[in-house]
């Protein structure tokens, strides 16, 4: 019951911040879609009006799968460093990851000083407090992705992209500099690699980041998470969980071998480890009064 009450407290406390975060994700999503539309759809089939463009897109069989591949595809792994000059780095995709990690970077830390001590001492058991922080962290990650994906879906529908699993060759080549290995993916695979895996992957990294803030300052924890995410772009290895958030690296797309099932298991394992380590750390750490945080976010 106390965990539920604590979650309710977190909901109330973070209401305003959640609105700002949601709005920023919404605006980013719209901006990205405009970019996608102008850069990809309109670029390939230049037509005077959006209505004509939509007809062409339907004829060319451009679907929502193509738009989601643009959003979540990331980057195909480089075979060697000589490709570095030519490859298109997944900057937009990376900004989404780093933005969500930014939202959650300070969660636990801000609640173990100042007014947060009132919460901690009322909950009595560190495990309950830590669990509620982890749940709140995952809720924030989910909220960001739900807004992102819903906005993207609505924009896709408004521009005439249907719910189909087909992958358009021209669109794919334009973004990833190579042809797709498969012409179609199933609905189940699409949900898994476009929606579920990015949420789980970012959620796991975000929980690890939050656990790190119990050991180092939030800015350092954020830097570590950011560097880990960036390195994962270049290193196609299961050790870098972020690979599972890039849909083009999934086995479902046929171009690479990251298994969605393995990705999900690794995420769950990492989340569990983050929870256990955080809980153990809380039981032994000294809660020394940090400088009183006057601002909403005070990282240093």
């Amino acid at each position, binding site marked *: 019951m106390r965990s539920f009450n*604590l979650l*309710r*407290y977190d909901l109330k406390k973070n209401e305003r911040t959640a609105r700002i975060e949601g709005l920023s994700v919404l605006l980013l999503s719209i901006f990205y879609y405009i970019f996608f539309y102008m850069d990809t759809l309109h670029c390939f089939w230049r037509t005077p009006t959006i209505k004509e463009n939509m007809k062409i897109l339907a004829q060319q069989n451009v679907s929502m799968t193509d738009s989601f591949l643009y959003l979540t595809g990331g980057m195909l792994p480089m075979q060697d460093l000589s490709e570095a000059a030519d490859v298109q780095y997944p900057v937009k995709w990376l900004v989404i990851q780093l933005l969500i990690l930014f939202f959650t970077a300070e969660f636990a830390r801000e609640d173990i000083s100042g*007014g947060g001590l009132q919460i901690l001492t009322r909950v009595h*058991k560190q495990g309950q407090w830590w669990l509620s922080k982890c749940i709140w962290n995952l809720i924030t990650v989910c909220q960001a992705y739900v807004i992102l994906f819903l906005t993207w879906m609505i924009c896709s529908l408004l521009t005439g992209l249907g719910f189909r699993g087909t992958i358009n060759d021209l669109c794919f080549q334009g973004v990833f500099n190579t042809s797709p290995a498969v012409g179609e993916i199933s609905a189940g695979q699409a949900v898994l690699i476009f929606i579920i895996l990015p949420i789980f992957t970012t959620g796991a990294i975000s929980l690890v980041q939050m656990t790190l803030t119990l050991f180092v300052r939030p800015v350092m924890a954020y830097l570590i998470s950011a560097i880990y995410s960036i390195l994962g772009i270049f290193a196609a290895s299961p050790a870098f969980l972020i690979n599972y958030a890039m849909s083009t690296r999934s086995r479902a797309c046929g171009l690479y071998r990251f298994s969605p099932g393995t990705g999900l298991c690794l995420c769950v394992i990492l989340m569990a480890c983050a929870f256990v380590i955080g809980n153990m750390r809380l039981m032994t750490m000294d809660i020394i009064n940090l400088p009183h945080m006057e601002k909403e976010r005070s990282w240093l």
Partner: protein
Amino acid sequence: MTVELENVSKILSNTAVLDHISMNMQGGHVYGLHGINGCGKTMLMRVVAGLIHPTEGQVLVNGKFLSGQNSFPESLGLLLENPAFLNQFTGFENLWLLAQIQSRISEEEVRDVLRRVGLDPEDKRAYRKYSLGMKQRLGIACAIMEKPDLLLLDEPFISLDDDGVKQTFQIIQEEKKRGALVILSSHDYDLLTHASDTIFHLTAGKVTKHYIKTEDGTFREVGRCEVG
């Protein structure tokens, strides 16, 4: 309610911030901690609250060690240094949000405690617009609202006007009569003698002097830390 410190020391960055402190404290009494800034008053309170783990020794609250998953006393009211609440909510909203975590008191009781500390429960101003004195009063209200058995007040008189100081004295005496164990700290010795039954004087993390209030209201020094 009893609190026992058995040979408690705390070392931070190679410095003994608490140095072999032993105390026995009982409910229904007010214990004052006196000393200059940095002598260990706040650190001692943090150890009793379970926020800091002693390097040596142990803390028992009602006979139970503070450790592991149960490192905070069950019934604790806390005012540590600068109180901090949520800027966007009123004083009442802040306290009610906190009260709902343990669900031990009603909205009316929250309103009562705000009146007790001299704040208006119907005040619509957000916390960010409170003066320092109002923030301090809200911090005291937060500490006492759930009628805790153990009350830790670190520098409760800071930023308070004369009325606020008088109200705080009254609150401390009321809590003592209710049976709570009150530990308060202040660098102002006059305020402390007025409020406390027993005073521990700290210097560099050690209890160097120990005074007990006599029947005529004066304080006599005792040789070692005695009960009550």
